[in-house]
């Protein structure tokens, strides 16, 4: 058999297991009595051993074998866990990493290199293990638990009632063995927004091909992936490959370029008026969109990865506050680009803290208000067009608008003519750094502290934060984030004969600028928009364009956190999806130029950084 095509998989998977080994060792080092890290280590090393033996990498296999023997002795209670044993295992993992690295570089294996380590491992295991017994290495360990595997099923996107189909597929699996850990929960099958993708763990004595065939027989099944996540499994049977995230980033970038080229082509085709060119351009546009979708899909991870952290945090927090709170999450299967996912944890944590600290009342207050003693915080994710809305709702006391109005008047953030606080205005005030109506300052969160961070973070992601609140009933925060960060929607603004791109995420609205109605606030020119004086920034002046601007011209209201500015330009030129492109920046580049891009007509344009203008 030609094994060379499995070489990359062997490397990727071995490295992953070795990284996991380091994690397990760190965990074990903190608590030597813990048994789980030992089990994880044993399985990872066993898997590496099996793969290495299959590939004929004898040095790696031997090293893994002797490491496994020591782990087996620890697991079986024949060797007591100690810092020395852990240290030795760290060395063994390092040696395996080195040996696997050699294999990766195509260098010869050096049998003698690890002699001392092997002797130490054998000595620690309490017996000289002798040469590696390669006969059993590809097979399961003697002590291996019953064969269990992760199965992922995707129902055809075009199939009607995918939830019903998913349940039928699950029934077929249940006929084969024990089904556990269905994700998303089976209740999702009843929902119309169920996307047709689910996973479960199947335990039984079957081969993967049988499992796949049985599930496919449910009909309308697009894909069945049977990954042997528990025991590593045979390399050849895998249907998934691991891809370096850097590769995906590069691919995403290429697709971004393609999007720009597509825009350009559509522009040219539109101008030429030639039917064949138009049709081809449209076809390419569709293909590029589909490809963009595929690449984005490859970068997607479920929101559950973030949601799963919160129940524990919330429980500890509620205990500190003397409150009873249940936290539920739904929509965890909704997926977001890895890069976005990494950014939403912190703002969500602020919102949850806020809900627990200021939203949910004490059990006594709740009972007095006719509510159950236990408060509820509901986390949910829903897909809304090209964004995902993540909501944090509580059934607490709601925000006291009257108190905020009083407080806001006192510090001058609300004009005397404002008598009703709209949800928008409420958010704007709460997002002011340090704003607080809390009668006491809690150690958990001051009202408003955290909201400003959440707003800023949402904006930085090209998203928004909004709030609705009803006194006595509760508060809902909605964080809307784009599915991906790679492509930015921008508003194009013209001054003189130049064009600049303004990321739409920071544009609150556009208004008409009237030079006769400006006033001065602290020596700065400002324009009044709905009773608010907003400082103006004239783009012509910033970029050094001489001459007279048109009499009628727009102001783009930029909003970054609580700061706002009216960017006065000559004209608005529509919106466009843009991709940020690298360029060699000359010395003296003004800070308000945040980058550059290529517009649909092929011309380069500079991107304004709203944060530097307000």
């Amino acid at each position, binding site marked *: 058999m030609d094994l060379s095509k499995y070489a990359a998989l062997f490397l990727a998977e071995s490295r992953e297991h070795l990284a996991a080994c380091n994690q397990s060792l760190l965990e074990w080092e903190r608590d030597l009595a813990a048994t789980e890290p030992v089990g994880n280590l044993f399985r990872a090393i066993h898997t590496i051993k099996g793969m290495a033996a299959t590939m004929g990498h004898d040095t790696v296999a031997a090293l893994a074998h002797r490491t496994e023997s020591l782990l087996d002795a620890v697991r079986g209670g024949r060797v007591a866990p100690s810092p020395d044993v852990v240290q030795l295992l760290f060395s063994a993992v390092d040696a395996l990493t080195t040996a696997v690295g050699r294999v990766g570089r195509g260098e010869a294996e050096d049998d003698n290199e690890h002699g001392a380590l092997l002797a130490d491992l054998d000595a620690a295991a309490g017996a000289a293990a002798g040469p590696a017994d390669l006969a059993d290495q590809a097979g399961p360990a003697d002590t291996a638990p019953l064969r269990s595997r992760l199965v992922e099923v995707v129902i055809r996107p075009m199939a*009607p*009632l995918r*939830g*019903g189909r998913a*349940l*039928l597929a699950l029934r077929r699996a249940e006929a084969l063995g024990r089904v556990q850990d269905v994700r998303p929960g089976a209740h999702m*099958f*009843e929902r119309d927004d169920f996307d047709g993708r689910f996973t479960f763990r199947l335990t039984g004595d079957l081969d993967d091909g049988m499992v796949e065939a049985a599930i496919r027989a*449910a*009909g309308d099944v697009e894909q069945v992936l049977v990954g042997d996540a528990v025991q590593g499994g045979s390399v050849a049977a895998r249907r998934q490959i691991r891809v370096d995230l850097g590769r995906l980033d590069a691919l995403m970038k290429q697709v971004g370029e393609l999007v720009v080229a597509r825009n350009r082509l559509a522009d040219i085709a539109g101008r030429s008026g030639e039917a064949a060119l138009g049709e081809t351009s449209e076809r390419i546009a569709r293909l590029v969109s589909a490809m963009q979708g595929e690449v984005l899909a490859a970068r997607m991870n479920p929101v559950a990865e973030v949601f799963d952290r919160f129940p524990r945090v919330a429980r500890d927090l509620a205990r500190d506050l003397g409150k009873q709170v249940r936290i539920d999450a739904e929509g965890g299967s909704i997926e977001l680009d890895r890069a976005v996912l990494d950014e939403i944890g912190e703002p969500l944590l602020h919102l949850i803290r806020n809900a627990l600290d200021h939203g949910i009342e004490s059990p006594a207050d709740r009972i007095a208000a006719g509510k159950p003693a236990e408060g509820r915080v509901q986390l949910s994710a829903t897909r809304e067009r090209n964004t995902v809305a993540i909501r944090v709702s509580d059934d607490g006391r709601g925000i006291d608008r009257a108190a905020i109005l009083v407080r806001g008047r006192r510090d001058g953030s609300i004009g005397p003519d404002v008598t009703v606080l709209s949800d928008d205005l409420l958010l704007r005030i709460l997002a002011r750094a340090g704003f607080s109506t809390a009668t006491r300052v809690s150690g958990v969160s001051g009202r408003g502290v955290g909201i400003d961070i959440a707003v800023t973070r949402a904006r930085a992601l090209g998203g928004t934060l909004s709030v609705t609140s009803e006194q006595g009933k509760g508060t809902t925060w909605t964080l809307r984030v784009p599915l991906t960060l790679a492509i930015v929607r921008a508003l194009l603004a013209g001054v003189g004969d130049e064009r600049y791109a303004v990321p739409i995420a920071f544009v609150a609205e556009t208004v008409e600028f009237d030079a006769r109605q400006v006033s001065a606030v602290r020596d700065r020119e400002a324009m009044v928009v709905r009773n608010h004086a907003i400082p103006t920034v004239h783009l012509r002046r910033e970029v050094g364009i001489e001459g007279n601007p048109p009499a009628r011209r727009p102001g783009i209201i930029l909003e970054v956190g609580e700061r706002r500015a009216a960017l006065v330009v000559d004209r608005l030129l529509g919106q466009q999806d843009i991709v940020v492109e690298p360029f060699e920046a000359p010395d003296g580049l003004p800070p308000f130029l945040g980058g550059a891009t290529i517009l649909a007509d092929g011309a380069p344009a500079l991107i304004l950084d709203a944060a530097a203008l307000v």
Partner: protein
Amino acid sequence: MGHSVLVCDDAIFMRTMISDILSQAGFEIVGEAESGVQAVQQYRSLRPDLVTMDIVMPDMGGIDAVREICKEDPSARILMCSAMGQQALVVEAIQAGAKDFVVKPFQPSRVLEAVQRVLG
């Protein structure tokens, strides 16, 4: 000899259409029911190889009928006939014991595929 089928739907139009599709494919239509109650009664007397069951019917809906039939005969092979947007009902019917479902408007090929899966 083809498999015997009981067709349950409150609309004559749908009963006729399903009967035509199945009889043309060699099945034998042994009975028709226009309510859940009738469906249960006829199942008892006919013991067909296959039942097609509309979800929404007067006098005991299709899901209750499935429950009733499966209580008496857990090996009953019931194919649900559903409309778009009835995801939750279909899920409930499968939990009650239905073996598969088709979605209106029917395409003969999809109906026959589903029937094959139920009988297969």
